[in-house]
């Protein structure tokens, strides 16, 4: 009924004793997420909101199990923390940090693909299967359980869109923020494939933005492999050329990475492209 995480997912929080890690752990526990352990080097033996804290991920996993790790470790140390999680045997690692050096990201992703671990991010809000599990920082009041899958580069845009879906009566199966790039673990194509295979997902919303060529690749996948309807919103339509629009990956260079190119590719592939979130439930009403 959802992808990657569900009500049985056991979650480890790395960086659990920090301000953000501790606050978000509280929110996740309230939501019903099974946060089984936390990790902060040097703080093993403590407890945060009743969750035991360990020095090493491997100890946390050995004693409590652990399917997914949510990593609140800052950019300079995030790659090492993710490598630790991968080697400790989790099957999903979520890198929330912005500002992870690209060479470090390359190292993490190459290990992850060797080990068959899904890495979300970096620079991601994480993912949420509404009503079941949240491994991220989403304002969950805006979300509702249902059957629309959402994949987004931007976390905030996925909140905005889920808010519009919820208000329009459409709940979500899983909402994934893949991160701001310019290098990603899980890609839009991989998320689309998971949604296509998921019985609980009836339609998918693809939220993209200027820069790079990921949306073009997603369009190709939609054209060739998706049987479920896809609605897409591409932001940065009016962005000036050559300016980095916030995400490291969001820049139009010359003729590459424009919203127009991405929109054309998606429309050719049969996706319905809208200009803003409020149109999405209206289009779904036609399609479903």
């Amino acid at each position, binding site marked *: 009924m959802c992808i990657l995480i569900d009500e049985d997912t056991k979650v480890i929080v790395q960086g659990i004793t920090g301000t*953000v890690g501790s606050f*978000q752990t509280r929110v996740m526990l309230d939501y019903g997420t099974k946060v089984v352990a936390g990790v902060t080097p040097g703080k093993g033996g403590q407890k945060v909101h009743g969750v035991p804290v360990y020095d090493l991920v491997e100890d946390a996993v050995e004693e409590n199990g652990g399917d997914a790790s949510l990593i609140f470790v800052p950019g*300079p140390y995030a790659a090492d923390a993710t490598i630790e999680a991968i080697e400790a045997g989790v099957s999903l690692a979520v890198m*929330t940090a*912005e*500002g*992870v*050096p*690209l*060479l*470090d*990201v*390359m190292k993490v*992703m*190459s290990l992850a693909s060797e080990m068959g671990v899904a890495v979300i991010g970096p620079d991601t*809000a994480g993912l949420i299967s509404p009503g079941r599990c949240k491994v*991220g*920082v*989403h*304002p969950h009041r*805006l979300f509702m359980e249902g059957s629309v899958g959402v994949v*987004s580069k*931007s*976390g*905030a*845009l*996925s*909140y*905005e869109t889920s*808010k519009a879906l919820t208000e329009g009566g459409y709940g979500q199966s899983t909402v994934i923020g893949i991160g*701001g*790039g*310019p*290098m*990603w673990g899980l890609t839009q194509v991989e998320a689309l494939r998971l949604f296509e295979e998921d019985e609980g997902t009836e339609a998918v919303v693809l*939220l993209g*933005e*200027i820069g790079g*060529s990921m949306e073009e690749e997603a369009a190709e996948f939609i054209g060739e492999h998706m049987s479920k309807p896809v609605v897409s*919103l591409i*932001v*940065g*339509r*009016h*962005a*000036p050329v050559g*300016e*980095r*629009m*916030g*995400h490291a*990956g*969001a820049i139009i260079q*010359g*003729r*590459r990475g424009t919203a127009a190119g991405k929109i054309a590719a998606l429309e050719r592939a049969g996706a319905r492209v809208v*200009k*803003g*979130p*409020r149109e999405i439930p209206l289009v779904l009403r036609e399609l479903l």
Partner: protein
Amino acid sequence: MRLPEYASKRIFTEKGLRVPRGRVASTPEEAKRIAGELGVPVAVKAQVLVGGRGLAGGIRFAEDAEQAKEVAGEVLSEVIRGHDVDRVLVEEKIQIDREYYASVTLDYDNRCPVVIVSSEGGVDIEATAREHPDAIVRELVDRHLGLTDYQARRIAKKVGLEGREMMQFAGVISSLHLLIHEYDASLVEINPLVLSGERGFIAADVKIILDDSAYFRHQELYAGLEADRRMPESGGGLRKVLAERAEIPTYIELGGCIGIIADGAGTGMLTFDLVKDHGGEIETYCELGGKATPALIEEAMRIVLSHEKVRVLLINLIGGLNRMDEMAEGIVAYVSENRPVEAEVVVRMSGTMEQEGREILRTQGITAYDNIYEAIERAVELSGGV
């Protein structure tokens, strides 16, 4: 961050890569002195961080020191694509037998470095890629093995080189690959890489872009660049530098009258698009990232509202990690210290701790919108756009 040409060339020289002899000047007299010391015809090159500088008149030649002074005076008074020229690089004009292109960058899809070379240098590589794709050689570098010497030789052979020249070219691309790792660069490029008689290959123009995420590993280099930088005295240049110093991820000025502050790249761009769709004219686009603090939004408001052209400020916040109570504290701190705020301020707030945030704003008589469209329509209406 893109390094200035002279700083990139300094790094190249340290690594044993050959560049034209020369130095930086900020006055015509200095340019004359440098040209005199070089004692040969020179190129005078504007040190601005924009592409297409040559076509815009930013590269000029001089036969002797006197002419170098004259030409430098002209270049130093130019404005190239909106950038004041405050320095020129004066360097020997080199003999050109052939021009090549060579770069190493990061391939984001394959998550490894990639070498790109071409026998057609001195022109825009993107244009070559479109018009003569066969003239470009592109090889991925194994992340574990690095660029092996033989692979570098093979690449050199593919652009048609042999013998001593092939060996030298291979050496150049190996050095570029090392620079990527040593400096956490996302691009190291030579265009053109000039084959110059007996002297072999000379990197006539070079570009290094650093991955700013790795700032913490290169603090000395950044400190040096910062110390070297001229601080703009006023206007948009100053505001941009202030925004950078406050670690505001994005600050752009465009030429309208609406300012946007958003707390996420995706919703920032959405706000930008929808304001334009509704007929609004945007002057300032300021995006705070998803992890803002009260101090950051307060500083962002100070910078954006210090610009007299911004008559309406639209603050669009939808928080996950960002807490709306904290954002509201920052907004209230600015408003209460800067009464009366001349510009109209429209706030939209949703997400984590939004009830608490709304309460805090209400104490200052600010009512935050919940719906993004209503906030945008209001902002555009106040700006007189529609």
